């Protein structure tokens, strides 16, 4: 560095520090009254194959932050300053953002969406003891690796699959066991493959015969072959496990090729419980059942949030309210921690009993980072709307199965 630039830096430093001193003398009250604020990392795949879900997730998180800030921020800590990151729909994209967020000094990171991204992000954040709250990512490995920084408010694979299968058996038994054979169509990354594996071991225990399991990549442009295979084997039930675009294409192609199984039952179906899908393709969506994340239909808060999102011209998808809930969970923990300190925040999350949220969950209690109260519900597309059909304490309608001819 030259003498000239050194001199310039020194002069600039002197000038700016004098200004600062003058300012603090002139406005002491403002400086003291202003709380430092809390930086939160909001990380979603807003570009790439998962960009729709990522954008929806970001919408939910930022809306929660806006609400908190409008109400004066977190008590004692001030307003939340969100640092928005794009995971590019890849694990590497996610970890790169963690590095940026860590050096920017965020108190915690919320988001991830896809299991593969969450796995990578949780590990990267663990290196800095940076609390990380998973918004959706359901792979059980996310919370079973003993990472002290990782928390998941929503349910994981194991719980969802068990609930889904128990509910499927219940619905089928109640209808007089019309369904015996099943075909599974799943996307071939961590989410779909993991789920397919689980279904393959557990469905036979419930008395179902699996005719075939068909994997496909994301994105897939054409589902004609898959539907041909379904048509050839004519299963009673089709179980799709894929993301939004592929789910819609599959359902539309099935409708086009007149493939009408007794039921389409999804587990975490990308579009099965999506208002967007129901609105745009009501005929393809009719009677589809899903075991998925859902809001509490009896919660006035959840319905107010729904209205707010719909007034913005957006769809009220699970990414929205799950991220909204995660931000509220972190805000609650921050208020109890009383500082934007990472260790204190992690401890506050661990002992969280967060209640009054918009999800149909039991009492919040974290064990090894997993919220034990989290549970999915069963929904069905009925009368151009999505209704909760199970469990009974949240249900708005009775399941219609098998699909009327």
């Amino acid at each position, binding site marked *: 560095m030259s003498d000239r630039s050194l001199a310039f830096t020194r002069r600039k430093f002197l000038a700016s520090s004098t200004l600062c001193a003058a300012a603090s003398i002139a406005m002491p009250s403002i400086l003291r009254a202003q709380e430092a604020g809390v930086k939160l990392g909001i990380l979603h795949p*807003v*570009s*790439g*194959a998962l*960009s*729709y879900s*990522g*954008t929806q997730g970001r919408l939910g998180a930022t809306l929660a932050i806006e609400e908190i800030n409008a109400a004066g921020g977190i008590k004692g800590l001030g307003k939340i300053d969100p640092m928005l990151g794009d995971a590019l729909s890849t694990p590497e994209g996610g970890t790169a953002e963690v590095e940026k967020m860590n050096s920017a000094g965020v108190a915690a990171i919320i988001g991830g969406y896809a299991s593969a991204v969450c796995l990578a992000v949780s590990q990267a954040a663990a290196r800095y003891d940076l609390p990380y709250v998973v918004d959706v990512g359901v792979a059980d490995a996310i919370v079973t690796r003993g990472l002290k920084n990782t928390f998941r408010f929503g349910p994981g694979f194991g719980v969802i699959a068990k609930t889904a299968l128990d509910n499927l058996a219940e619905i089928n038994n109640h209808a007089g066991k019309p369904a015996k054979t099943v075909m599974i169509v799943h996307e*071939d990354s961590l989410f779909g493959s993991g789920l397919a594996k689980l279904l393959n071991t557990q469905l036979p225990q419930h008395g179902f015969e699996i005719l075939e399991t*068909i*994997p*496909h*990549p994301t*994105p*897939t*442009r*054409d589902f*004609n*072959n*898959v539907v*041909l*295979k379904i*048509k*050839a084997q004519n299963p009673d039930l089709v179980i799709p496990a894929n993301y*939004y*675009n592929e789910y*819609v*294409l599959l359902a*539309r192609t099935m*409708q*086009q*090729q*007149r493939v009408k199984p007794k039921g389409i039952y999804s587990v975490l179906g990308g579009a099965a419980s999506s208002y967007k899908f129901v609105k*745009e*393709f009501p*005929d393809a969506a009719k009677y589809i059942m899903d075991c998925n994340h859902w809001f509490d239909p009896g919660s006035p808060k959840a319905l107010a949030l729904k209205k707010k999102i719909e007034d913005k011209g957006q769809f009220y998808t699970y990414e929205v309210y799950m991220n909204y809930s995660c931000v509220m969970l972190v805000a609650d923990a921050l208020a109890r921690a009383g500082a934007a300190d990472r260790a204190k925040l992690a401890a506050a999350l661990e002992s969280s009993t967060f209640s009054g949220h918009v999800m149909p969950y039991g009492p919040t209690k974290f064990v090894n980072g997993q919220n034990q109260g989290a549970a999915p519900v069963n929904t069905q597309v009925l009368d151009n709307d999505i209704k909760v059909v199970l469990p009974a304490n949240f249900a708005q309608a009775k399941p219609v199965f098998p699909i009327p001819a």
Partner: protein
Amino acid sequence: MFSPVILITAILNGLLTGAVYALVALGLTLIYGVLHIINFAHGALLSAALFAAFFAFHLLGLDPYLAALLLAPIFFGLGYAIQRLIISPASHGDDRNMLLVTLGLSVVIENALLYAFRADTRTIDLPYAFQTIDLGFTFLPIPRLIGFCVVFAVALVLWAIMRRTDVGKAIRAVAKEKLGAQLAGIEVSHVYAVTFGLGTACVAIAACLLIPTFYVNPSVGEAFVLIAFTIVVLGGMGSVPGALVGGLVIGVVESLSGLFLGESLGQIGIFLIFIAVLLVRPTGLFGARA
């Protein structure tokens, strides 16, 4: 093993899908044949055209097939302007620069779309989108049948332009011998821009054929362009009939390998062909010897 009915249906589906691939590849191969560059912005332009078709339907109420009549000339103009005002001045006459400029353009176009329309996946719902023709043993989707016919009509028109008009003659002259064409009084930069415009117009028509049954988001074009590259190599760089036949072959291969190997491995068939063609017949099926 699959029954013959399923195999025939898969082949028919492959042909219908392949026709649209072929149209995307037609644009790419035209541009390659004349400008000798691989147009990396092709996919981004396809995404842009899909958005245009989407908004033509939503804002103007234009049926996608009618919108093709409007969008093809608009995208011809757009392609012409891109080549004349951006690629040509920025590349200073060097082919390698042109390649990089198209790569940069693709990044800019895609991100501009992302900025303007967000990452939402959008679809349109047409009353006939789900209609099928019953062949007795299978159902053929009407929108894809229309697409198939339109692709052949477009290919015929392109062929006529290339063979029967002065512009076509000029394009072929520039493709064969740039300096010679220049000496004969052909304005090379104009021919370049016309070719780029024709390639972009092909993309616009392909978009109008896709939108009734497909979705649009800012990165949707990429998926098609990788396949289109393979088709161009298979059919022969710069060959119009090559792109057409290549598209159909790739469509059938994709469909059959998807059926036998599963959708996840379905693309393997395409890329095996890609490698085999490069090894055995680098000029492609219809390519001229270098």
